[in-house]
């Protein structure tokens, strides 16, 4: 019996390896977990996209469940995502804020005019410094904050209807129900 066992050991190791490699196939290295989840949102003060004279800051997002969506007109996936954002805005369950990241003001304004504006307000991050503070490395990215302004979730990549129904909306409902 023990004689057979020693032949089973390499086989077992082989299957463990296969399990690890198989898991590796379904992992996306582009999705780097954010260390900011569970922490207060980074402070910022930026000019608004629609009104350069006015500013918007992190305090505008506090005291309620809020969403910060990082987008830009040069970002193709952002266009794909825009429909979903409009859908989310239509539910009226949460205020969506935008961080217009390294973009051009006229182009961004034009974008909102053409495609519709799901945002409560947009911050205009011309040089991307605020983006760095939020750990942005690829648009679009979406953060969900609770009422205390703690980041509770980061969605990397374009929002989909699936993600909206399975992750975002349930989380928002949960955060809304807690004080």
């Amino acid at each position, binding site marked *: 019996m023990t004689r057979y066992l020693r032949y089973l050991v390499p086989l077992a190791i082989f299957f463990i390896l296969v399990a690890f490699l198989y898991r590796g196939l379904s992992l996306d290295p582009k999705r780097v977990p954010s260390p900011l989840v569970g922490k207060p949102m980074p402070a910022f003060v930026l000019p608004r996209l629609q009104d350069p004279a006015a500013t918007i800051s992190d305090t505008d997002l506090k005291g309620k469940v809020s969403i910060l969506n990082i987008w830009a007109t040069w*970002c193709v996936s952002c266009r794909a995502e825009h429909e979903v954002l409009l859908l989310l805005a239509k539910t009226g369950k949460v205020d969506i804020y935008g961080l217009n990241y390294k973009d*051009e003001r006229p182009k961004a304004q034009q974008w909102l005019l053409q495609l519709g504006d799901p945002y409560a307000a947009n911050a205009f991050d011309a040089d991307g410094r605020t983006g760095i503070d939020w750990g942005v490395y690829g648009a679009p990215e979406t953060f969900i904050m609770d009422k205390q302004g703690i980041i509770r979730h980061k969605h990397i990549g374009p929002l989909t209807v699936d993600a909206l129904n399975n992750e975002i909306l349930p989380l928002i409902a949960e955060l809304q129900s807690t004080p």
Partner: protein
Amino acid sequence: MKSETLINSSCRRMPASSALKTLDPGMRRDDDKIITQGILKTLVAVLTLCLLLGASLAQAGVTLESFKFDSKAEEQHFKDLIEELRCLVCQNQSLVDSDAELAHDLRAEVYDMVQAGKNDQEIVEFLVARYGDFVLYNPPIKPSTYLIWFGPFVLLLIAGLLLLRSIRRQQKVPAAEISAEERERLNTILGNTTTSQDKDQ
């Protein structure tokens, strides 16, 4: 759907020609500009090639041309620092190598911090706080990385112990002794008078 790689999906190495735009704060996404930039880049690339052929250009610090340093040592220090940091867009490139726009931004950010007199640890902490340990090419030793750091040594230890055991076991097995009677029987079976050893092989 995959997250779109930031701005510059071209994960090519930093060409010397693009080092100039590193600190340009007016840099924007602009299709026409990209096209003209593309032509310009090709031009500059050709010129650079000529230069390279003409004289052996110092390859080191290609990306650092736009940064001003007080001394060579300072420049080397900066380079060593960003070499240990990963570009999140082109994940197999360090901040030294990558031409992604985020790498440009982060290089500028690190440069500013160095100029502001921050030490390496503060700078690394700044980036880790935003991007996580993933920005470090040299992962820190902590419970979640014990396996990476010590796993190979554990495997080596296990392999060494197994080897030792098998060697010991071989030593313990005494050379088989056969009696004269058995030897005779063996020779009869083999049909000769030589020892079985000669028959080997």
